[in-house]
């Protein structure tokens, strides 16, 4: 199995899709000559040309909206919103348009649109280039929400997202682009709505997304030294959610910690906690602990940023709290 970076995995997924299927094209800001602000689409202009690798104006409403219209007319567009903070500008198109055409038309329309975006802190981008807004979209019927944390997952989930007949918000994490991981020789699609157990354990389940999957795995190593056995589960798809796997894991371990980089209040961890308390109430030995960013717009200075966002140590602390309750 070759080892590639998360960035290369996205690029490889996009390229394999586009080689195979003329309906697929990508558009977004600075994705052509520059290869995207994160370098994900580097080299793709040379291979696929400007018709299928389209630089757009700085127009997030039109980028998403044009993707919706092309998707309704039989194309499979992949649009890129450079930073997920900028999704706010295209919110109307995503929430009122993409998500609702199918229902409003009584099933006449499909919107097979993939909206790739990225975000995340850890490099002092300040308050408008690092938010984690994935939970907003989980609240909207008609949308699917994917958040991949490894090279293998990001490639396999991208494939399934592009071929899903619904609009998919596809979240990548900025700080994961350089991480390396093994991927199968042949691209293997990963069905949406399937969680991945990264590490098996028997005392506590940590349900984590994005960067916090890696932080949680680190925390699990540390906990192991204290004799605490931690299971780490990544839902990978936030909507639809693989509730079965999550509930099964918590029934086994009897304790649960949720972990994401987004702020705790109203975050995806709240949904996970609700799912877990309902599905595993009689099994739980401690309240569900939530780990996430502190409730503040992200400050610039590295010491403040470091303080505001969660790390392995925060996950470890939460693990210890749940164990201490028993």
């Amino acid at each position, binding site marked *: 199995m070759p080892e590639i970076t998360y960035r290369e995995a996205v690029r490889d997924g996009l390229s394999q899709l586009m080689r*195979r*299927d003329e*309906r697929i*094209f990508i558009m977004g800001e600075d994705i052509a000559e520059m290869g995207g602000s994160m370098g994900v689409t580097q080299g793709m202009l040379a291979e696929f040309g400007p*018709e299928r690798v389209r630089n*757009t*104006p700085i*127009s997030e*409403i*039109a980028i*998403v*909206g*044009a*993707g*919706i*219209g*092309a*998707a*309704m*007319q*039989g*194309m*499979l*567009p992949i649009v890129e919103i450079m930073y997920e903070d900028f999704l706010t500008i295209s919110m*109307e*198109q995503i929430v*009122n*348009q993409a998500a609702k*055409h*199918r*229902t*409003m*038309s*009584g*099933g*006449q*329309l*499909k919107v*097979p649109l993939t909206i790739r975006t990225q975000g995340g802190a850890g490099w002092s981008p300040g308050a408008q280039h690092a938010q984690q807004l994935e939970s907003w979209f989980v609240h909207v*019927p*008609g949308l*699917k929400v994917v958040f991949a944390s490894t090279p293998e997952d990001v490639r396999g989930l991208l494939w399934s997202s*592009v*071929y*899903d*007949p*619904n609009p998919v918000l596809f979240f990548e994490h900025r700080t994961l682009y350089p991480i390396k991981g093994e991927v199968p020789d042949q691209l293997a699609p990963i069905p949406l709505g399937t969680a991945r157990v990264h590490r098996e354990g028997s005392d506590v389940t940590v349900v984590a997304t994005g960067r916090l999957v890696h932080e949680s795995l680190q925390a699990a190593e540390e906990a192991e030294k204290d004799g605490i056995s931690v299971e780490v589960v990544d839902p990978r798809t936030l909507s639809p959610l693989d509730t079965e796997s999550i509930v099964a894991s918590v029934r086994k371990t009897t304790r649960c910690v949720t972990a994401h980089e987004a702020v705790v209040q109203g975050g995806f961890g709240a949904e996970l906690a609700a799912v877990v308390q309902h599905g595993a109430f009689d099994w739980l030995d401690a309240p569900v602990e939530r780990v996430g960013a502190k409730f503040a717009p992200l400050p610039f200075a590295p010491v403040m940023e470091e303080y505001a966002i969660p790390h392995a140590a925060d996950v470890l602390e939460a693990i210890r709290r749940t164990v201490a309750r028993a």
Partner: protein
Amino acid sequence: MTQVEGERRSASGVLAPERLRELYAQMLLIRRFEEKVEERFRAGELPGFLHVAIGQEAVACGVCAALEPDDVIGSTHRAHAHTIAKGTPVDAVMAEMYGKVEGCSGGFGGSMHLYDVARGNLGANAVVGGGLPAMVGAALAFKMRGEPRVAVPFFGDGATNTGAFHESMNLAQLWQLPVVFVLENNGWAESTPAAQQLPLAVEDMEHRALAYDMTHWEVDGQDVEAVYAAMRDAREHVVGGRGPVFLNARTFRFTGHYVGDPQVYRDKDEVRGLMESHDPIELLRARLGLSDEDAEALDAAATAEVEASVELAQAGTDPAPEDALKWVYAEGSMEPDGA
């Protein structure tokens, strides 16, 4: 006849009398339909709320008459006229007003979300300006595949204040996409007059297109033949790969923003005067020289069709409550060999 930028176009002698007569019948059908839904709404029979386009029928009918079957439109919250003009039977539109399975959106849409995808109606949008970007995207698909089709968003002057409008105009012009932007320029944004919502005079709306160096044509929106002629030329222009066209149709809304709007903001005498001098149906009747007898026969036919649609809708099928969840997600896969 050649369209000249900056010149408001009127027309006669473009269409054969028979074709014009059909458009007269269609406008009349739409008028009677809208009067009927107003009546049934006031009688408490229709759920939700409604916006009628009484006074603006010539824009809908002239534009849609000039389109080919594969062309697509995107409509607004004031959608009945566009939908009927694009060919959806009155029965299906009326059934949608009643929330019935037989409705053109299966009861899922209502007055503000009329769809008929098979007939090229990609949907009526209830967010002002919100439907425009998708029409640009539809045009992008046509251009990428080399299909001689055109995407036609309808919108009002109020929508030209939205970011969605400007981003759509900008992208369509930048990529030279086959879009005809049809401005139904009635001078009102709901209850707010042009003077309070536009930095331009109603007569100067071409500046919206000039900002993007887009071809713009002005047309008398009360003259269905002129609208037809302008749209036909606009279609030829955009399908020929010469970039999008901004078609500015000056028109008049004879009613309130919504059914039941007391219009406290508007001079009643002015509305009455407009109805007497600018009614597109009366103007066409005069051009056709219809006899009273002829006009009455056409009116009776339109009225009967609308009455029949009400009876069908009243007797239509209610969706099962749990159908609410039926279309949230599409099933299957978009793989080339997928379901």
